[in-house]
Structure formats: structure tokens, C-alpha cells
């Protein structure tokens, strides 16, 4: 009888403990201690990349690895870890590639600079085109000599 009771208690503990859940399905309703924790979980799952299905975040990916990563983020959030600590944890295991928002560091400098470089390049081309155009406008369409020739033609000399 007591064994049966113990078994039942174990089952209950299993059902109640979030840590035992094998993986966290997409959109699975989750319990949080505070709204801040929920916010952190929702933000983090949208900022971490599923490393097997590389163009998806773990928030939207169906891959098993993504489900594991969601569960880990959930557990760590419940344990009171900060967002930075959780991201650092994932980066230590999967590399910078796991972040959807790449940090500004030496090897990503070109990536971050590229929009400004492209914009600068566009400005340069625009400036050149405008300069050439304004120069064309300034130039007289015909030289005096040509004008005289035209006048002669018109008069029929």
C-alpha cells in the first residue's frame, strides 16, 4: 500500500515539476513566477538561433534541438538567471552563431559597418551623377561659332 502511495506521489511530483518535461513544444503554455520572467523567456527564444535549422529562431523551430533549447531557456529563466547569463551559456556551447543579434566585436565589425558603407557608397555615386549633370547644364548648347553657322543656314546663305 505504501509503495503504491509512494508511486502515486512520484507521479504527481513528475507531473508538477517543470524540470522533468522532456522538451518544450512550440507555444506550450508555461508557468512563470513573474511577468518579467515571461518577458525574458519570450525575448530570448526569439533571439537565439536554432543551430540545426539555421534560418529559424528557437521560438519558431520544430526541430528537437530547438525544443531542448527552449526547455533549457525556460528552466534557467525560472531559476532566476539573467538574460545575459543565459545567452552567454548558449554562446559558450554553440558559439556566437547562436545569437540572432550578433554582438559588435572585431570579427563582426564589417557586418555592422556594411549598411553605413553601402549608404556611403550610394551617396558617393549620387554626388558624382549630380555633379556631372549640373556641369552639363552649365555648358552652352552651341558655341558661338555653331550659332553663327546655324544663323547662316537659316538665312540660306
Amino acid at each position, binding site marked *: 500500500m505504501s509503495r503504491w502511495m509512494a508511486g502515486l506521489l512520484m507521479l504527481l511530483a513528475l507531473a508538477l515539476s517543470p524540470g522533468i518535461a*522532456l*522538451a518544450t513544444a512550440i507555444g506550450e503554455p508555461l508557468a512563470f513566477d513573474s511577468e518579467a520572467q515571461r518577458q525574458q523567456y519570450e525575448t530570448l527564444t526569439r533571439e537565439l538561433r536554432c*543551430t*540545426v535549422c*539555421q534560418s529559424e529562431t528557437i521560438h519558431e523551430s520544430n526541430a*528537437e*534541438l530547438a525544443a*531542448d*533549447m527552449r526547455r*533549457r531557456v525556460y528552466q534557467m529563466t525560472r531559476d532566476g538567471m539573467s538574460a545575459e547569463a543565459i545567452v552567454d551559456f548558449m*554562446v*559558450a*556551447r*554553440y*558559439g556566437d*552563431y547562436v545569437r540572432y543579434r550578433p554582438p559588435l566585436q572585431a570579427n563582426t565589425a564589417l557586418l555592422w559597418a556594411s549598411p553605413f558603407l553601402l549608404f556611403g557608397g550610394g551617396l558617393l555615386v549620387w554626388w558624382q551623377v549630380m555633379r556631372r549633370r549640373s556641369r552639363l547644364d552649365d555648358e552652352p548648347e552651341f558655341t558661338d561659332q555653331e550659332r553663327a553657322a546655324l544663323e547662316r543656314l537659316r538665312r540660306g546663305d
Partner: protein
Amino acid sequence: MKLKLLIPLVAVTALLGLLLLGLGLNSRDLPSPLVGQPAPAFTLESLEDPETILTEQDFIGEVALVNVWATWCSTCRQEKPLLMELARGGIPIHAFNYRDERDAALRYLEMTESPYRTIAYDPAGDAGIDWGVYATPETYVLDAEGVIRYKRIGPLTRQLLLDEVLPLIEKLRAEKLRAENLSAEPSRRTS
């Protein structure tokens, strides 16, 4: 004027060159931050015996391979003959049975030979995250101190073994011997 005409040609050629380079890259070949780090800690049941608890210490001691596999992973099946050869050649292979069912895994190992010395059972992928596992199969090379020295995402191939893995194992074994000789010498001198 002629030079200006060349600019679009050069630009397009450069872009095509970059794209061609990109075609040759495998987006799965990501550098692992774990290479050079000590083997991450884990506590898992042994696949064969739920009573036996394994930790990372059970993988450490010799230059060894750690292979991540599952019965649902057909690439792992293709890779197994190579692992068998390595095991017969005296290279210890430890393993994580990753997100698998114990019964299925045991049946699979009963039907064919097992190349594995130690198998940790990881049904929830817990150790998987700590070891930075992307997908099965994956193989790590541990040195005698338990530091990860190499990681392969995807199946091993004969060419890869000959070019990278076996030379690395040779090197690590030589390092280990040298370290042992060094530590043995001072004691000889004092005695």
C-alpha cells in the same frame, strides 16, 4: 571612358566570385567554442545499466573519441563500420546515446557489434546541450586530460580519419607519453 565601362564588369565578376566561394562553404561547418575546453560535466545513467551513473570522468583518462548517436539516425548506422574499425584498432570510443529509447538502442547494439566502451544514456538531450550537440552523429576527440581537441559535426569518413582524426590521435598520444616521461624522471632522480 573605356576604364569606366570596366567597372560594372569588375563588380559583377567580384560578386560572382563571392557567390561561388559561398557555394563551396558548408554552413554546418561551424567552429565549436568547445574545442580547447575541458569536457563539459554531465551525470547520466549508463545505457546498459540504469543503476550505473556515468559522469565525464568515465570518458577521461586516455586519448579517446566521444561519439553522439541514436538508433533513429541513419547516418550513424552508416558511420558504425568505421567506428568498429577504430575500436578494433585500440582507440577507445565513448558515446552519448542521444534522444533515444533505451530498448531500441539495446536491441540495435545486440544485433550488431558495439564499438563503444562506455555509453551514457541521454534521452532528454541534457548533456547534448552542454556538449553543444547540433545533430547526430557528432564526434569529439578528447586528449588524456579530458580536453576537447577536435569536433566533427556529421559523419566521419575514411578520408577525414586519415587526414585529420588519426594524425591528431597519434599526436595526442605522443604528448601523453612525453608528459608521463617528464613526470617519471624527477621521481627517478630523487630515488
